[in-house]
């Protein structure tokens, strides 16, 4: 899922300084899983904002709403009936959702309540780890299911660098060396011969490096 983490309360309060009526928009998908912007986090954030304002003797009215997703028209439309009653929207969905809300409600200021970071997985409750960089040209079949782009700090394509020691990356002693993981996995799968095959220089145009991307499925368009 897309992993994000909530901005500090201080930063959010600063953004909200001029406003008295706020819609706090959560999302029921990725940010719920990584406990950054789901219904529960919306409740906690709204409570924190109200407490902080009350402490300073100021009022604030917060409408808490958690949409199914903020990346689809139909769900964002659900806000339309009451959006006019509020001054600003504070969204805690991922960056995509925040932007889509801003696109749909052009006359409203939309503020980001989270910092969107990576595509990742849940290792255990409370711990999320990066797995995918969205490079657009997946080589997982060649590397035993471990991504050299996302899991190697240098995104090397043909083996570990000299900084790999005891299976750890030189960047951080707690970071596993991506290539060590790949080699271990290829051994387990009896595919170590794949390690000898050279993966050619990567064409990064399929990644963000080629510009903002779009995907079309003509057969699905009405």
């Amino acid at each position, binding site marked *: 899922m897309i992993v994000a983490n909530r901005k500090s309360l201080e930063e959010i309060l600063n953004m909200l300084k001029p406003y008295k009526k706020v819609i706090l928009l959560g999302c029921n998908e990725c940010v719920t899983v990584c406990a950054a912007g789901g219904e529960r986090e919306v409740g*906690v954030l709204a409570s924190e904002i109200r407490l*902080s304002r*009350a402490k300073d003797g100021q009022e604030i009215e917060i409408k808490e709403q958690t949409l199914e997703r903020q990346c689809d028209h139909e769900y964002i439309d659900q806000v339309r009936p009451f959006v006019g009653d509020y001054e600003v929207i504070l969204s805690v969905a991922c960056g995509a959702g925040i932007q889509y809300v801003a696109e749909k409600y052009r006359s409203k200021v939309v503020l980001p309540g989270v910092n969107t970071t990576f595509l990742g997985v849940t290792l255990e409750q409370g711990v999320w780890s990066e797995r995918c960089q969205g490079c657009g040209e997946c080589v997982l079949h060649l590397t035993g299911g471990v991504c050299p782009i996302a899991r190697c700090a240098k995104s090397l394509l043909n083996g570990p660098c000299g900084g790999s020691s005891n299976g750890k990356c030189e960047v951080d002693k707690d970071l596993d060396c991506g290539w060590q993981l790949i080699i271990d996995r290829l051994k387990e799968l009896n595919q170590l011969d794949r390690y000898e095959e050279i993966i050619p220089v990567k064409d990064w145009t399929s990644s963000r490096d080629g510009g903002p991307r779009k995907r079309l499925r003509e057969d699905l368009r009405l």
Partner: protein
Amino acid sequence: MRLNYPTNVKIVKVPCTGRVDILLILRAFESGVDGVYLAGCLEGECHFLRGNLRAKKRVQYAKKLLDEVGLGGTRLEMYNMSSAQGQRFAEVAREMTEKIRVLGPSPVKKNVKREA
């Protein structure tokens, strides 16, 4: 045991402190209370196995949130006791009341709208 404890302590009964959510604690402060404490089973003796450990973690997190908000995490505490320890219950009630008395009323109080 018919022991006395301060009258300002209002008890909210839950089946396990693990039931207590961070939002419940924050909403309590929003309603204007000066302090909140959780009284859970002794560690290792939670009737539901780990509820009190979850509560401990949540209390630690909520204390941080309260510090950020400016109310002060010292207004929230976690205590452990056996349901057989009546004396400890009264002792904790007195201890917490004294602590909150020193801290003073919650700054949020004056802004709480009272329903007529």
